[in-house]
């Protein structure tokens, strides 16, 4: 299995992803699965600027990503998937049951969210969505960087 990281991070491709996780996991492919970015070539070019030449980057919609997850998971190339929010995570996991492990890397407070970690704010609805995913056996941990201590969903909530 070479789906090395499925991460929710509202900054999408940024330093923690390409430098922090990139140096640790050495992915061949970074998948930014986001409906808005998939429809915006200008933003795709900007996000691609932050990706080292050794890594490929793709910009599918959530639906397109869901159709490719099995391929990525069984391919020899190492892949990480970046999602912008918990809604996107739920949609992807619903369509791609092969995803069994999820990383919460950064959800910031733009509304009614409650703080759980310095980099993680969740609304009640998002907590409910994560509990549902956990009940299906998906391992959910919060961890901003590879050398940080992972926090389980149980400890988080």
């Amino acid at each position, binding site marked *: 299995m070479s789906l090395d990281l499925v991460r929710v991070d509202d900054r999408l491709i940024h*330093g923690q992803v390409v430098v922090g996780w990139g140096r640790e996991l050495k992915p061949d492919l970074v998948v930014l699965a986001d409906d808005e970015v998939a429809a915006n070539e200008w933003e795709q070019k900007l*996000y691609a600027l932050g990706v080292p030449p050794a890594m490929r980057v793709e910009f599918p919609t959530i639906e397109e990503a869901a159709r490719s997850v099995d391929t990525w998971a069984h391919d020899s190339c190492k892949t990480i998937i970046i999602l912008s929010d918990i809604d996107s995570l739920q949609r992807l996991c619903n369509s791609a049951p092969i995803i069994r492990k999820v990383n919460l890397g950064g959800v*910031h*407070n*733009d509304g009614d969210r409650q703080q759980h970690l310095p980099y993680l704010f969740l609304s009640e609805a998002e907590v409910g969505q994560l509990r549902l995913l956990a009940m299906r056996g998906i391992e959910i941990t919060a961890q901003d960087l590879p050398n940080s201590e992972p926090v389980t969903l149980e400890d988080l909530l």
Partner: protein
Amino acid sequence: MSKALKGVVVSHGDVGSALVEAVHAITGDDRALVAVSNEGCSRDSLGLRVSEAAGDGDCILFVDLPGGSCLLAAARFQREHASTTVVAGVNLAMLLDFVHHRDAAPSEAAARAVKVGAGAIRLIGE
């Protein structure tokens, strides 16, 4: 003379504020530059910080890295504000030069900043 350009240093953590403090300490100028950090920000909230710092006038956004959240926020702002230019890879040398050349057009000042900043990176002792 037209109104002096403003510089906004958009960075990870405290990099921007440290650079702005260093410029102040060296030149005594505390009006040319302001710092914006991406600390604790989503894409939207960082965009708001950049917008508030840049205002409506002519401005150069100095970004720390040529990719990532700071560049994204700066590029989005630039797209909506023709009087703004973005320079990635900020360093102290370009900021020190910038504070003394703020009467240029944004594109001219940005080109100068790139030249001065790149020229300050040197291999010493070989």
